[in-house]
């Protein structure tokens, strides 16, 4: 089997690539324990920076705001993305479906500067229109939590739609059809059959949304006002000025939390997959046995 063997060249490239991806992160983690005035010179072990970060009010309040935005906008994006993914995978031919598909993927494809600018201009125009019509200040549309929420929901929705749509397309539809034949209402079919089947996709979509929201600095910069700085905005303004050991600590915490979460999710999903395989094998065996008994 010559084609199945991994050539030394491929092996070296794979390991070099993985080293390229991981060495900077590992060094970052190591230097978060660095006890030296010069950030890049090793001067012994310390956990001083961890203590400092936990007392840094600016970072903590920004992190709290980011978390709130990430969770709320991801929840909204999951709801919208599930509807949109269902529409694209199951309803398929409806009026304006090409436009629909184009609009869904636009925030994914367009550079963040364009998405951010266009949303800000929209908000300003709506605010102006409402001001003209109502005659008073439309303060709830001022740049802040709500406007960031709108932007992040739209961005996350695009990615979540792709995830849920692809899960729905590869899903076996016979269960839903069987339920329909048995007279179940569409809404019931969705909640009893379809939703549990796409639950893993919804979960990973939600996590993806949280990551995207926690990462975004450009769209947020257009949509945030005074007093609503998110964590990426604080990080960006800090690292622009130079190296900062507290950022190493923040990165280490990020890597630790995300790494554990992703590996745990993967483990659960793999266990579920093996469980499903096991159940299917058991069902198959039972069926075989029943057939044998029938023919006997």
């Amino acid at each position, binding site marked *: *089997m*010559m*084609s199945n063997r*991994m050539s030394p*060249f491929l092996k070296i*490239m*794979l390991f070099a*690539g993985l080293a390229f*991806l*991981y060495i*900077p992160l590992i*060094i*970052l983690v190591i230097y978060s324990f660095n006890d030296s005035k010069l*950030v*890049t*010179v090793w001067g012994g072990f310390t956990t001083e920076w961890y203590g400092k970060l936990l007392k840094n009010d600016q970072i903590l309040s920004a992190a709290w705001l980011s978390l709130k935005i990430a969770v709320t906008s991801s929840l909204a994006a999951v709801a919208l993305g599930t*509807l*949109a993914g269902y*529409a694209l995978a199951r*309803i398929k031919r*409806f009026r304006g479906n090409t436009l*629909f598909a184009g*609009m*869904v993927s*636009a*925030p994914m*494809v*367009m*550079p*963040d*500067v*364009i998405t951010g*600018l*266009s*949303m800000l*201009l*929209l908000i300003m*125009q709506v605010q102006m229109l409402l001001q003209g019509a109502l005659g008073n200040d439309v303060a709830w549309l001022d740049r802040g939590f709500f406007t960031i929420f*709108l932007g992040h929901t*739209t961005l996350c*929705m695009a990615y979540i*739609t792709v995830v849920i749509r692809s899960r729905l397309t590869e899903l076996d539809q016979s269960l839903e059809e069987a339920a329909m034949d048995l007279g179940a209402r569409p*809404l019931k079919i969705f909640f009893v059959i379809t939703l549990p089947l796409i639950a893993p996709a919804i979960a990973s979509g939600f*996590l993806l949304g949280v990551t995207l929201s926690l*990462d975004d600095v*450009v769209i947020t910069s257009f949509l945030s006002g005074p007093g609503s700085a998110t964590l*990426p905005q604080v*990080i*960006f303004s800090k*690292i622009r000025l130079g*190296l900062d050991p507290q*950022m*190493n600590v*923040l*990165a280490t915490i*990020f890597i630790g939390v*995300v*790494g554990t979460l*992703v590996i745990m999710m*993967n483990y659960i999903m793999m266990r579920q997959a093996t469980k499903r395989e096991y159940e299917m094998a058991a069902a198959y065996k039972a069926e075989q046995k029943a057939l044998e008994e029938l023919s006997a």
Partner: protein
Amino acid sequence: MKMSSVNIKRRKRLGARIVTGIPFMWLFLLVLIPFFIVFKISFAETAYSIPPFTPLFDEEGKWHIVYQNYQDIFADFWSSLGAMLNPFDGGNRGDNIYLLTYWLSIKTALMTTLICLLLGYPMAYAISRANPSIRNALLLAIMLPFWTSFLLRVYAWMGLLTTNGIINNFLMKWDIISEPLDMFYNSFSLILVMVYAYLPFMILPLYTQLVKLDKRLLEAAADLGAHPIKAFLTITLPMSKSGIIAGSMLVFIPSVGEYVVPELVGGPDNLMIGKVLWQAFSDQNNWPLAAAIAVVMVILLVLPIGVQQYFDNRETAKGGK
């Protein structure tokens, strides 16, 4: 009996309308209309007011359309283009900053895409050839950095690359070099970090394509006496074409509009269009100009997407036959 089936149909149609209608309205209001507003404002004039641009209709209801922003972007097009692209006239980059930054953005994105492809292809190929039991673990290893904060991954390289950074420190300590290497705030650090940030986007679509490849084709080629390199060039490479295109698009398009990486590690010579748009918007408070820059950028990006769609459609048409 007949009534109820008509009823069910009607209800189903109503359900479908609600399911498509809600996300459709959201996208219509928050994606499509904003694009039109950007387009509209790109024909306005900047003004000292809130918001800082003139309306397209003046008080008497007459059109007030200004092409100045586009004229600024395309001023002295040919002479600037000539100066910019002339390899023998080093240093002269033309007077038109917008054209120059569009060009630098595209150049940087192309370089990033090419290096990601050269680095990512063997990696994706290796994973697709790996034992199925470790394949998932390898894919997870590729994806894991993507899930951690983008900004902090860029920051990781800042500590490594600066003049008194970790790499220079070690090289000087071990007497490999006597002067610190100039690796930061230039094209080298820009491309390196861009490749670092976007490499997973290249590997994943390549992997999905390569893992589908029928190994029997390669065995047949070997049996017929083809050199592995020839087999690769005539079988593997053409059959992974759609993966190459998809991965390249996933890297190229966000690279063109990248703002964060050039700002943090790119240095003054690597101005990119995202930054110019941001400057026009926030420093000069010239929203119409920012809108016009965005419109030209959209057109620049829609072109390659259109080409990809064209090839995609041709491919599916071929597959259908």
